[in-house]
């Protein structure tokens, strides 16, 4: 089942980009068309989570948060550039579950969405196990399985493999890999990434995996 997220944001660029990126994460995303009737659109769409801006046309986000709270206990995340303490306190008092400052990092937003969904709905992150050509990556156990053989991975190797598996059939740039590793508190540099890659390649060989990590010169890495 796909979770439904409603974006209440009047900036079309932000709303559009959020929609595209959230859809990549397998969510169904809805917009608000008429900012005078957010509640009726909320009722019609029936979202599992709401992302709410504060400054909106006609009424502000606090009012809509308050109104939504009268009819629903759905998780609400405020997303606003008005990040003074007063605004955050106000948002929380109106019944919001979290507050993210603009500008924000999409990875932070997705982590907070997942955490809220997990707390509210028993949401299981669907990609705890990733698979490619019969090779299974168990993120929780930090293991790679292929047929009867298995192989342990270090934390950082798991993070790298996760990004590679999520982007199978695509060239993953070193920069993208590094950014994703940074987001998980692992401030990797060029050398460390190369060392990790070498180790992962050896492990894939030991596993007799039907693919390897190929280096595309000047572009990045590809599972092939």
């Amino acid at each position: 089942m796909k979770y439904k997220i409603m974006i209440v944001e009047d900036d079309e660029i932000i709303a559009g980009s959020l929609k595209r990126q959230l859809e990549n994460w397998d969510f169904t995303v809805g917009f608000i068309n008429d900012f005078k009737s957010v509640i009726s659109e909320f009722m019609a769409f029936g979202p599992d989570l709401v992302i709410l801006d504060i400054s909106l046309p006609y009424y502000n986000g606090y009012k809509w948060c308050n109104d939504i709270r009268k009819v629903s206990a759905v998780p609400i995340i405020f997303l606003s550039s008005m990040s003074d303490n007063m605004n955050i306190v106000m948002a929380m008092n109106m019944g919001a579950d979290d507050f993210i400052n603009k500008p924000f990092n999409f990875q932070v937003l997705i982590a907070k969405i997942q955490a809220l969904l997990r707390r509210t709905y028993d949401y299981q992150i669907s990609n705890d196990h990733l698979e490619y050509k019969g090779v299974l990556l168990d993120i929780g156990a930090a293991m790679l399985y292929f047929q009867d053989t298995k192989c342990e991975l270090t934390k950082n190797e798991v993070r790298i493999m996760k990004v590679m598996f999520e982007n199978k059939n695509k060239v993953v740039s070193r920069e993208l890999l590094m950014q994703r590793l940074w987001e998980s508190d692992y401030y990797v540099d060029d050398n460390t990434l190369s060392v990790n890659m070498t180790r992962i390649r050896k492990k894939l060989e030991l596993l007799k995996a039907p693919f390897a990590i190929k280096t595309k010169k000047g572009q990045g890495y590809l599972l092939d």
Partner: protein
Amino acid sequence: MKHLYKEYIKDRHYYLLSLLFIVFFADLFLLLYGAEANALAYLNISLLIFITVMTALDYWRYRRLFRALVDFRKEPLIKDIVDDRQNLLKAYAVIIDDLKQIIKNSDEANEKKMREMIDYYTLWVHQIKTPIAAMQLLLDESGDLELKSELIKIEQYVTMVLGYLRINAETTDFVFSHVDLDKLIGEVVKEFAPVFISKHLRIEVAKTGYHFLTDEKWLAFVLGQIISNALKYTKNGSIRIYKQDHYLVVADSGIGIDPKDLPRVFEKGYSGSEGRIDKRASGIGLYLAKKILLELGSDIFIDSKLGEYTRVYIDISDRNMMIE
């Protein structure tokens, strides 16, 4: 003005009485010692003429001063309530009161202007953050690190505007809480990820396991400024963040600071002798950092060797005891 002479007499009556008293006593003593009536008359006439002339001169001076004060009070700045019957000292008192009122009014007007300016800049910062957020999201999709790095710089400058206005405002909103230093460092460092990655700079963050009472937002702002500086002036090598005694140290392997600039780097607007340090440097970042830290009851200092390293020390002693 017409009864000014009455005021003058009132003002000077002890002095005038003493003069008459002196004449009276002189007459009395001379009379007792048997002076001739003629001599007495001459003395009295000449003394009275002398006294009258001097008093007239004094009155003339008094009147001139008073007129000057009245004219002064007629100036547009001062509210125009001229009371004819006021004496000189009272006139001064009224003028001083007027001036006090003027200062108070102008202070209030300035404060209001300042508040309105801060309100506008606050609004502006919120406005500019929406397009920045939009650009950041679009760049998340396209993944251009160099553009992202530039956007981080813009965001940093925007944050600086607000920091500058707020720390210079009469009332600054400090919110003290127990802060997990490692978490704070992590959050700030991650903001700069695209810069580190695109410049191929290494960062080493040593876990501190330290918690202390401070204002999280302001400290994060200061740390952001310091890391942003370190990134600006480091071409290769690494930036290290670690705790040493009661200091948080941000050390870089960058161009360093000339010893003759070092004592002045925290001055507002100082960006190095002969345009050194950096032509783009505003001289605001470190000034703000120091000011904020001093207000937080902390401090900052820098140790550097030109061409080798810069180490910024932020005092992170726990002020818990002092506040409780």
